[in-house]
């Protein structure tokens, strides 16, 4: 029991409830229907993307619109290498390729004002789509690839594993001194620079790490698609959804993007199979706009504000020095 208490104290985290939820999810393919497994695949995917996005954009405030570019890169990695290598290798390749791309993009733009980063990442998806489209048309005269497909259950477990790794890395980072440095960059970059934080390197590295998970996710999901081409692989919507989920959920901690992912994946499921099918981009876009207007810290931020106010009202006023 002492070990458990030490563990709890050291990590400051109540592992009870999440552990139960995790076990429930982990055993889903055994008791759930195929439909449910597929649904949860999307839950896991978007949770991974939203958390990965938050690792960088949530901490620093630099809004990355390039998620779809790394995700698409992962899909293409699966297409190119999926038949010749074990799947786990392909995942690493996809992740590594995204890391490198993100590092280059970061090295180019993150040493400049934040707006350049936004502008560059915004067009990145379109760029990759166009270049690959041109490449396939002109150089290879073959459009698209067929991808090795794996069973639903296999994809489910790969994603679950990826989500776990993503969350563990995100959590470890936030508790480490790099997490602190990252937070300070989001608070006041100039001050962080002046107290010895190599601001540019921290930003670039964090961005690259977050991209790695996005690429890995793309590799895994590619096997659900069976056929891919540049238009399918590079879809701006994949940049939008994680941003929406993280913003709505709240970027202050890891729960926010997870909750946001669950809500919007479910909403997406409902909307795309109902009468509102052609309206769902409109609805989601509007939700994002309204969220930013009135709930910039997301749902979780709102709860935190209310909780703080509640706490302050309860305790007696302390004298200030």
């Amino acid at each position, binding site marked *: 029991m002492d070990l458990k208490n030490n563990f709890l104290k050291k990590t400051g985290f109540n592992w009870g409830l999440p552990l139960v939820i995790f076990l429930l999810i982990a055993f889903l393919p055994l008791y759930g229907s195929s439909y449910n497994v597929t649904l949860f695949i999307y839950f896991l995917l978007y949770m991974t993307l939203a958390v990965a996005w938050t690792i960088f954009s949530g901490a620093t405030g630099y809004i990355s619109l390039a998620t779809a570019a790394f995700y698409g890169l992962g899909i293409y990695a699966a297409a190119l290498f999926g038949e010749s290598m074990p799947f786990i290798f392909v995942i690493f390749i996809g992740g590594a390729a995204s890391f490198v791309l993100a590092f280059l993009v970061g090295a180019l733009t993150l040493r400049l004002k934040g*707006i350049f980063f936004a502008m560059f990442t915004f*067009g990145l998806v379109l760029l990759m789509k166009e270049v690959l489209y041109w490449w396939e048309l002109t150089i290879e005269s073959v459009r698209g690839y067929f991808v090795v497909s794996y069973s639903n259950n296999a994809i489910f477990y790969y994603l679950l594993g990826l989500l776990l790794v993503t969350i563990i890395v995100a959590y470890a980072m936030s508790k480490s001194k790099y997490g602190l440095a990252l937070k300070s960059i989001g608070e006041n970059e100039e001050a962080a620079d002046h107290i010895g934080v190599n601001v540019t390197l921290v930003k670039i590295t964090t961005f690259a790490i977050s991209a790695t998970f996005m690429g890995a996710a793309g590799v895994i999901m590619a096997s659900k698609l069976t056929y891919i081409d540049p238009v399918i692989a590079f879809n701006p919507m994949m940049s*939008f959804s994680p941003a929406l989920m993280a913003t709505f959920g709240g970027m202050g901690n890891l729960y926010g993007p997870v909750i946001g992912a669950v809500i919007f994946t479910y909403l997406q499921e409902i909307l795309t199979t109902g009468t509102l099918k*052609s309206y769902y981009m409109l609805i989601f876009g509007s939700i*994002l706009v309204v969220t930013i207007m009135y709930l910039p810290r997301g749902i979780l931020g709102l709860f935190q504000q209310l909780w703080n106010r509640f706490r302050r009202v309860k305790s007696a006023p302390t004298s200030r020095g």
Partner: protein
Amino acid sequence: MEELLNIILGGLLIGGIYSLISMGMSLQYGVAKVLNIAHGEFLMFGAFITFAMQQAGINPLLTIIVVGPTMFIAGFILYRTVFTTIRVRSPNPGVFEGNGLLAAFGLYFVVQNIAVLIWGSTPYSYRYLTTSWDVGGADIFANRLVAALFAIAIGVLFYLFLKSTRSGKAIRASAQDAPTAGLMGVNINFVLSLCFGFGAAMAGIAGSLFSLCYAINTTMGLQQTLLAIVIVTLGGLGSIPGSFIGGFILGIIGTAVSYWQPGLVVASYYVIFVILLLVRPKGLMGK
């Protein structure tokens, strides 16, 4: 040689439209401090309104009288409601820039969806002033010439407005230092919304002019926004004259690339972007 002339002339002609698009975006970012990712969607809407009216029998050039003010009002209202709320609630300009960007991203999807609902995803085009003249071996199409002249005229008019009128001065003051301008009696909320509206109007008009010469479809906005971003960077963030010149430069480059490899036009924009970021991020005329 003929080809070169074709490229330069063709580039200059489309450059007129490009200049207009990017001046609009420069205005929105330089003054209203919003990187309007949905800028291309205003362009697309302008193009489609013109198309719809043209199909109903109205001269497309006349439709500008409708498109301009309509887009202006839409932009004004959008800024007055959405972005002003965000601006007022942002603790500092950096946060506003980030939140404004996300909001514009959301708007991109909203406007896209609306357009697709109304018009679907197929391309449309119409024929207007398709006569052409032979100038030294190169072809000049009447519609492209008219479009370019209109674009340049509007751009120059707006620039004169900024330089000489009181409202223009208020705008320039707000661009430099909004809080101080506010203290000196400028109604900041109004001026910033005005600028955003102007920017949207320019995008819409550029779209109308675009439809005179080229086919349009509901997904055309993204590439135009990206182009505007590169031009604005090339000209210098916040510099309206810079965007004007940059538009022509990129018109020529874009035309040249589409002669050589039409599928690499976006890639060529990015090459320029990368070079700019490496060598001179503040562009030609940036401060």
